[in-house]
């Protein structure tokens, strides 16, 4: 049983509370969805329930929290972990030991459990999470979905009564999400209390007992409106000429392990194409080949008429945006960030135009790190657009963004497409693909298994 009363929390070095006067009751065995837009306080609430806040974050917390009789504001995170375990977004950051089995043992040993109990717990965790075939495999060799299952197994082995999931499916592909759903169904059937925060919770509908909708740090009665009122539909653009031509390309990172064998694919100018497929199907590799970051072993790639080019040759003709905005921002202000690329190319750029056009004028002198994740991703995108590329490639650009933010980002891409720019993007979020793509290419292990044009 979780009881929260008048919980108010303010992060260090900030003035305003992220959570305000939260009252909450969650019964044993309930499956609870915490929803809300980015910055609404979802993760903060979860962190309060297992002591990460205030112990590891600091800040000012007032109010009462009772988690199965424990007070996480007083006890250590390690102590509360055996009652309320948490799984985060990025599985790579939650795995600490070389093999699957050793990683599950890690938490049990830290908890000081006797050897006999550890072996029983580890065995059970391996079975429940479907990891028995990988037990002695190096954790690095697992897929993202399997890694996330391992992260859950590590928590499961501590036998907590409450499982907290903080956007744990963000990095997973469709297959990984299905596997994750099976685990959640199993936890619910075992009577565990599950509290999950998700940006795209549609797939959880049949499990949810209770919804907590957060808006600006307070529990909002009813559902928070996170869907745009109308699905934006953009007029199709008529193609003329070829933007990218891939002719009989073969490529592999290692000898005799080719990802692509004799791949043929054309992207016409002005197309809006989604490349979909599970992790490891070759989406990012395809983009890197198109951009000249990787060189095809056999065959030829032609981009805007150029062949045998390198990334430096096509810089400015093609723009590439990837998942994490923080790896793509370098300047001290938003305005400088937008001017950064054109300056390197020796091209004049009127930053004011871009700031106005994309609604960022109020942030011109702000350091990019002061913006929200969605805004940082937009700045990274605009910074690429400022280099006036004809081809825009977006690699999982919507990962980690809430619906409102990804709609804004993809609307920008759609608007550019309607001006004749070629847009190619990959996404695991099929809502994004459904809403925006005019052509959908599905890759499976480096093969094009379907290529459909949509009306």
């Amino acid at each position, binding site marked *: 049983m979780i009881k929260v009363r008048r919980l108010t929390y303010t992060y260090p070095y900030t003035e305003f509370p992220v959570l305000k006067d939260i009252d909450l009751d969650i019964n044993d065995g309930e499956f609870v969805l915490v929803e809300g837009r980015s910055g609404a306080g979802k993760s903060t609430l979860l962190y309060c329930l297992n002591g990460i806040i205030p112990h590891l974050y600091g800040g000012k917390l007032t109010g009462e929290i009772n988690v199965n009789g424990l007070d996480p504001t007083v006890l250590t995170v390690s102590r509360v972990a055996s009652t309320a375990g948490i799984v985060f977004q990025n599985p790579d950051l939650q795995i600490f030991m070389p093999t699957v089995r050793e990683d599950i043992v890690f938490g049990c040993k830290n908890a000081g459990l006797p050897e006999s109990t550890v072996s029983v717990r580890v065995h059970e965790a391996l079975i429940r999470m479907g990891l028995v075939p990988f037990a002695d495999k190096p954790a690095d060799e697992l897929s993202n979905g399997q890694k996330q299952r391992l992260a859950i197994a590590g928590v499961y082995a501590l036998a907590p009564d409450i499982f907290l999931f903080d956007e744990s499916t963000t990095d997973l592909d469709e297959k990984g999400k299905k596997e994750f759903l099976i685990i959640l169904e199993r936890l619910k059937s075992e009577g565990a209390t599950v509290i999950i925060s998700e940006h795209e919770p549609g797939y959880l509908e049949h499990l949810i007992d209770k919804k907590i909708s957060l808006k600006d740090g307070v529990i909002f009665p009813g559902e928070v409106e996170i869907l745009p009122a109308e699905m934006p539909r953009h007029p199709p653009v008529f193609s003329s000429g070829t933007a990218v031509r891939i002719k009989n390309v073969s490529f592999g990172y290692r000898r005799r392990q080719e990802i692509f064998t004799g791949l043929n694919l054309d992207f016409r100018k002005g197309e809006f194409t989604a490349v979909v497929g599970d992790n490891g199907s070759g989406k990012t590799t395809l983009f890197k080949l198109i951009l000249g970051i990787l060189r095809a072993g056999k065959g030829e790639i032609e981009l805007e008429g150029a062949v045998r080019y390198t990334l430096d040759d096509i810089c400015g003709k093609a723009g590439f945006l990837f998942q*994490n905005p923080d790896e*793509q921002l370098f300047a001290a202000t938003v305005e400088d960030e937008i001017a950064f690329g054109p300056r390197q190319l020796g091209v004049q750029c009127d930053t004011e135009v871009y700031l106005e056009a994309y609604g960022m004028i109020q942030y011109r002198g702000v350091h990019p790190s002061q913006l929200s994740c969605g805004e940082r991703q937009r700045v990274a995108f605009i910074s690429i657009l400022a280099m006036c590329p004809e081809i825009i490639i977006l690699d999982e650009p919507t990962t980690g963004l809430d619906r409102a933010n990804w709609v804004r980002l993809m609307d920008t891409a759609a608007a550019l497409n309607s001006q004749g720019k070629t847009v190619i993007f990959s996404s695991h979020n099929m809502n994004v693909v459904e809403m925006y793509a005019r052509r959908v290419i599905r890759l499976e292990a480096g093969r094009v298994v379907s290529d459909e044009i949509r009306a």
Partner: protein
Amino acid sequence: MKRGEWFQMKYEHKNTFIHCLSPEIKIAYSIAVSILIVILNSPRELFLLAAAVLLVLFLAGPGFGRIRLLFFAVAAVVLSTFASQAVFYSFEPKTAVFTLVPDDFPVVGRFTGGIYMYREGMIYGLVQSLRLIAALTMAVTVVISTHPAHMVEALVRLRFSRSFSFVITMSIRFLPFMFEQSKRIVLALRMRGIKTRSINGAFRMIRFIFIPLVVNSLRQAKIAAFAAETRGIALDKNSPDGRRKNSFFDFNTFELITISFFIILMYVSIVPFKMGLGRIPFFHTFFFSIPITCVLFIGIGLIPKPGIVFFMVCGHRLFIQIMLTGINPLWWPYALIEATSLELFFLLRGRFLDSYGAAFSAGVLRGSVVYLYFYLVSAPYIWHQFYAPWYIGIQTFWGAAGSAVGGMAGYRFGLLIRKTCARSGL
């Protein structure tokens, strides 16, 4: 050796007799071989040692790629050591057996008095080559047959500090992750027009890469620390009832993971210099000192606590030994002296890095201590290598200058990173 192949000298998952030995035995083996390398002096004894160490390597069943790599590394070591000692041998008596440049040759011959190959130099080169072959082969055997995490566990059993071992474990765990992140940032910079192939472009790249790399690492370190704490790790002192106590003179989990990320950054930062600028004769200590001191001082600026230098410097040394060069205690005093001198400097000042002057002084101290120790103690008494006083002076000067430049750059970057972190709520 192709670019990047050096990184391939890593653990191979096999089931040989050597793989099955406990890491403690391998540590004992490393120490024994290291001591023998120092105390043996005759070519015959060293040959027997090198042959025995090679035999142990073959018992570990290295793959063809590793053998090929080792062969090229050994060939390079033997040729360069043999040739340099044969030509630059400085002890007496010495017998010239081959004339490379006669003494009456214009300019060079007259200036140097002729360049010859000496018999005693060749023998000394051979002895040195055998030492290096034994050290290299021992390192490869231990590295390919012991998983880094198991080596760290052994160090814990051997009473290494748990916090320190945790730092090394995390460095090993997050190395591939950090490599990928660095590659993505470089890619993002190239997409924005930074050319990597020019020297100017490379320097601009370094200027822009540090802040996103460190700030991102801090974000990741925070999540990893949360995950570690929720998996029950409690590296600070807790009372038995689980109530939190304020611990003094200690690092929390976030700081420890941050230190482990900085150890990786120290390692990653010197890789480009190992390949290029760090090989420029007479100036290599200057170029080599800049990046490593820069990262070290950023770390000190972010976690200004007693023990930070020790954790970063000794952690970095041990991390490299576990990952690449094999456990070799002969290099430990080098790291300990560097760490102790800087810790004492900050202790006596009563403050950590708070000005460019402090960064400059600490940099000069670091560079002087490190290179004087190497050339005056480590090289002659451990590695049996002797250098002329003028050469020691030049190298120490450049090392101190490089450390001072790196130190001030680290202080500057540290300020910018702290500002960025404060803005983004880290």
